[in-house]
């Protein structure tokens, strides 16, 4: 982490040496202000346009040129809707909502967005997002139960069930990918893959491709919003700012999942080695940062659109059916992919 912060110090070109904590905050702010929020905005806009196109509608076209300001307009509307952000009388609900927000906003330190934003790059880094997902789901459950409404309680319970059932196959699939890379460290996982598709983990062996599919579908189960039927969801009673933050949390979940899938299976943020070495030698860290971000986010955006497209076109299955899918199909497949990857890697080593 110290090396990373040294690079940031050089990148920022400041004459004095700021405290390390300040640099960490700067990195987090960079990720939030220049990556997460703009990306959420872009995704929301393109998602609405694409969905409208699939539904033979025009989509947002009022606010700004071709409706590009529509998301902003919605945001303004949501923020005006509920002036009493944390009103009294809802203390329990507010406590869990505060914790939810804190987790949401600190969870960004786990995000592997490039070699220069890896704040936590330990031997167990790849497992940390799962911990975050569990805690976030637990928090959502308590938040929904604290609302005291039957439908939001059902929604919260379903979120918890989704996360628990999707996590097992996804964790096993992650182990297969990390086994191929030889580590749970983000930097090692990234280095084990190349720039072009044939050197991406997902396409190096059939077992890793199965593992990739299991990881994606497991993620869908984990992050799938519980069916909205009759408003049986956590957000059914939310409005205004709380609704916005809750939806941002759901987006963050999908984004986090897609980023991890890209890092594990789709070549991470890798650029051609010659280009990387040249930029590093000339100390163009800012350029490295943006190229890596660009590569990673382009792949992530593509993956997110594919996944959301599949979700949008198909009906949602019931929570017990999602659990069945996870336990009876995804889990055995993930175990097959893990064992297959062990044998494949062992055979390659012996040969």
């Amino acid at each position: 982490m110290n090396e990373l912060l040294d690079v940031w110090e050089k990148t920022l070109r400041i004459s004095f040496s700021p405290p390390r904590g300040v640099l960490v905050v700067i990195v987090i702010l960079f990720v939030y202000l220049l990556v997460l929020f703009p990306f959420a905005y872009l995704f929301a806009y393109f998602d609405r346009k694409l969905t409208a196109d699939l539904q033979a509608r025009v989509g947002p076209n009022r606010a700004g040129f071709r409706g590009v300001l529509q998301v902003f307009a919605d945001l303004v509307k949501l923020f005006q809707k509920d002036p009493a952000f944390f009103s009294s009388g809802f203390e329990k609900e507010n406590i869990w909502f505060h914790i939810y927000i804190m987790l949401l906003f600190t969870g960004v330190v786990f995000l592997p967005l490039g070699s220069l934003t890896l704040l936590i790059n330990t031997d167990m880094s790849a497992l940390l997002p799962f911990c975050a997902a569990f805690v976030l789901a637990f928090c959502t459950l308590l938040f929904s139960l604290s609302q005291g409404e039957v439908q939001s309680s059902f929604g919260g319970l379903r979120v918890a069930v989704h996360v628990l059932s999707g996590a097992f196959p996804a964790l096993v699939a992650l182990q297969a990918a990390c086994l191929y890379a030889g580590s749970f460290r983000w930097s090692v996982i990234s280095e084990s893959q190349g720039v072009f598709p044939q050197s991406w983990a997902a396409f190096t062996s059939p077992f890793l491709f199965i593992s990739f599919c299991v990881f994606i579908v497991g993620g869908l189960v984990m992050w799938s919003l519980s069916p909205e039927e009759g408003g049986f969801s956590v957000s059914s009673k939310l409005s205004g700012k709380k609704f916005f933050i809750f939806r941002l949390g759901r987006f963050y979940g999908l984004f986090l999942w897609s980023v991890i899938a890209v890092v594990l299976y789709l070549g991470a943020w890798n650029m051609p080695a010659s280009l990387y070495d040249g930029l590093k030698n000339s100390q163009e860290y800012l350029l490295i940062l943006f190229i890596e971000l660009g590569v990673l986010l382009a792949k992530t955006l593509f993956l997110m659109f594919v996944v959301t497209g599949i979700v949008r076109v198909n009906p949602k299955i019931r929570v017990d059916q999602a659990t069945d899918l996870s336990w009876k199909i995804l889990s055995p497949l993930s175990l097959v992919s893990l064992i297959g990857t062990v044998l494949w890697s062992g055979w390659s080593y012996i040969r």
Partner: protein
Amino acid sequence: MRSDLTKWTIGPFLGFPQGFSHGITQGPIKLELFIDGEVIVHGTVETGYLYRKLEKAIRLHPWVSTLSYAGRLDPENAVFGELVLCLAVEKIGKTEVPLRAQRIRVVLSELARISNHLSFFVSVARTVDSEIMAQYVLRDREKILDLFELLTGSRFSLGFLCYGGVRKDITDGFIERVLEVCELIQKRIKEYNDIYTFNAAFIKRSKKVGKLSKEIIINYGVTGPNARASGVSYDVRKEQPYCGYEKIDFKVPTGIFGQGDPSCGDVYHRFLLRVFEIEQSIEILKQATEQIPVGRFNVNESVQSLNVPSGEANARVESSRGVLECHVVSDGRAQPNSVQFWPPSVASAAVISKVIEGIKIEDLLVVLASLNISVSEIDQ
């Protein structure tokens, strides 16, 4: 009944989305559910929040105006309300409706049937949370509403029928447009099959869910597609033909896929039956448009001058939701003495408490949507 169950009232006055204005019931309905975890053990239905004194209003107005009220019985199927009242009044007056008018009535009825069945697909798609599926169907339904607009100037409450025929003759090019839409819908049925019938996720959500047995159907008097999906073969168009349906060759798709199938009568079959019914409606439309003769479209010179003699009559039509019955009593005055409707949704709503027993809460709306109930029709 167990006493440790959670009682949960879903009603129009609790601000709950499916209570007051959820699209699947097209009106307010109150459900009182007793749930055990996610399973509904027992439930009751309460209607009456949309009571408009429709029958009373009809009695207070002259004969000419009554048809507008009859069309409001079920705004989405306005033509059937008008038609059944027309048939009853024409029976009292022993009016011979011209063949051209009869054929136009058949065309309008079948278009309304297709439109309502497509609307059913939309409701079901929305309850399984697939807006894209819903929009695909809505796109085609628009074409039928365009046809209504072309002929009558209205898209829903048509107000096109009158005692003794129809108000106006069909416009130039209308028949060609109807046939074009038939061709389009026929092609689209393949698409609907792709996105619904053969969709694994849809099958998971609809098969073996909300099963209605033949016994329940008969005991509660459920009619229409809901009954036919459970294997009860009854269609007024075949049993007691009206408007010249006896001269049209068509099949009544009934339980052809359900013979021996233990899941017969579930949500999936109710959906599938409507797909088959759309195919048959297209067949009827093709034949009816071919058979439209040249001639008068109304027996009365003016729709304003109408004298209904004393008497009473009963008429039945096969609406898209089931058998719609109307009983009219006339004492020779300018207003009817009594008009009573027996809409199909009454029986369909009565079986809700039976059909939701043992289903999961997540399936509640899917099952309700599959019954295709119009609260407007029940409350009148």
